[in-house]
């Protein structure tokens, strides 16, 4: 696109990857929490227990799936000029449905999550997936993408929630895993604990990724010594 209209138009191009790739990319390679850094508000706010993390992850997955399928079905009918408004409307409706469904089916988790369920509307992961994927892909691919991203998001929240619940309460999913003599770190139950835990998880992932990259480069250097200058740049 070269004209001014491109400023207002969604980037074009449906996914050409194998369908499984649409699902799998959200689990790890493009994980919403660890790779895309989206949905940070719930990541910090509600991960003080694994149960809350799972409930929020499942609610977000439901909204991702519902709104993704809905947008994909009507993608050719949604006028480009009002597409963002329409996506927000659809997302907000599914959040409301998730809120009522959670209150009816899982009232304890609904009470624990409090106002953060309504704030799923403001999770930029949702709008990002509608805009970048569901608006230009088939219903099946959109559902796979939403499921992959939703499960990846739930996984990300659960990892942070695991660190916080074990250190903050000495339990995991409500089961005691630390000795009785363990003194819980109260800060892990507070919002700063979310920042600390998330920071340490990211630090661990960066260290692991860096080590893996270095080892791969080292193996390549041993196998092909003549390419040393190129590899040094890569390392």
């Amino acid at each position, binding site marked *: 696109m070269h*004209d001014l209209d491109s400023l207002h138009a969604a980037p074009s191009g449906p996914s050409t990857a194998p369908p499984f790739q649409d699902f799998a990319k959200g689990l790890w390679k493009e994980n919403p929490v660890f790779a895309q850094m989206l949905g940070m508000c719930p990541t910090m706010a509600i991960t003080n227990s694994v149960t809350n993390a799972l409930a929020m992850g499942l609610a977000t997955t439901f909204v991702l799936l519902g709104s993704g399928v809905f947008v994909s079905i*009507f993608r050719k*009918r949604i006028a480009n*000029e*009002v597409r963002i408004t329409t996506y927000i*409307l659809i997302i907000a409706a599914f959040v*409301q449905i998730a809120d009522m469904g959670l209150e009816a089916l899982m009232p304890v988790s609904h009470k624990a999550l409090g106002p953060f369920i309504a704030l799923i509307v403001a999770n930029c992961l949702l709008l990002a997936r509608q805009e970048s994927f569901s608006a230009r892909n088939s219903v099946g691919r959109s559902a796979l993408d939403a499921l992959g991203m939703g499960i990846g998001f739930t996984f990300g929240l659960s990892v942070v929630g695991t660190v916080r619940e074990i250190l903050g309460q000495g339990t995991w999913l409500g089961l005691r895993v630390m000795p009785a003599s363990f003194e819980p770190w*109260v800060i892990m139950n507070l919002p700063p604990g979310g920042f600390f835990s998330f920071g340490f998880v990211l630090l661990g992932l960066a260290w692991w990724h860096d080590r893996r990259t270095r080892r791969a480069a080292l193996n390549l250097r041993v196998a092909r010594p003549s390419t040393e200058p190129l590899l040094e740049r890569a390392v």
Partner: protein
Amino acid sequence: MTHTHDASGTPSLPEATPPVSSFTMLVTLGGAGAIVGLAIVLVYIWTLPSIERYKGGILRGAVAEVLREPARTDTLFLVNGTLVDHRPAGDADRPIERVFAGYDTAGTPVGYAVAATEVGFSDPIEMLFGYEPRTHALLGLKILVSKETPGIADKIEKPPFLEQFKRLVAPLTGTKTATPAHPGDVVMISGATISSRAVIRGITKAIDRWQPLLDAYAAQHARN
């Protein structure tokens, strides 16, 4: 996006996209709103009985807890500044303030469960407490809704703090000493005095408001 070429073969500006009509935009937004609106209404109708049942169960459990498992409870409605034991006819949908009267097996009143709300550290704290207006004794306390700081102030929901409300006598005052000197002394939670004081304030305000109403109801009940 298509590009056109003039006679000399030089690429010209791309063709402009035809503007979308206002009607199309209205149809898009209106149609999406109508579909998702219908979905919300259907889910609301579907989930409402479960939500009401759950909330009713929570309230019944709380009433029984703060009145120490009475044999029977009655709902009293506040109508025109007076407590009555039945909802006015033809007024079924309007929310009316209520208290719950508890009775023992002989039909003697054991106390009233009164709701109170007070702003805490994070958000309003909603609570229900059992109260005997004749002796000003508290029978129990249950925190219904609280968003106080996890790990610190959420101790107001836990037994060590709640247990003391089974043996207090109004008026209440907060104390930081572990051994209270007066029957109205509430041992506050260390590091969460704002939340503790909010609970004390909420109960005190509710007693100030409901005491004359409960006294009048008891007097009328005794006459009858």
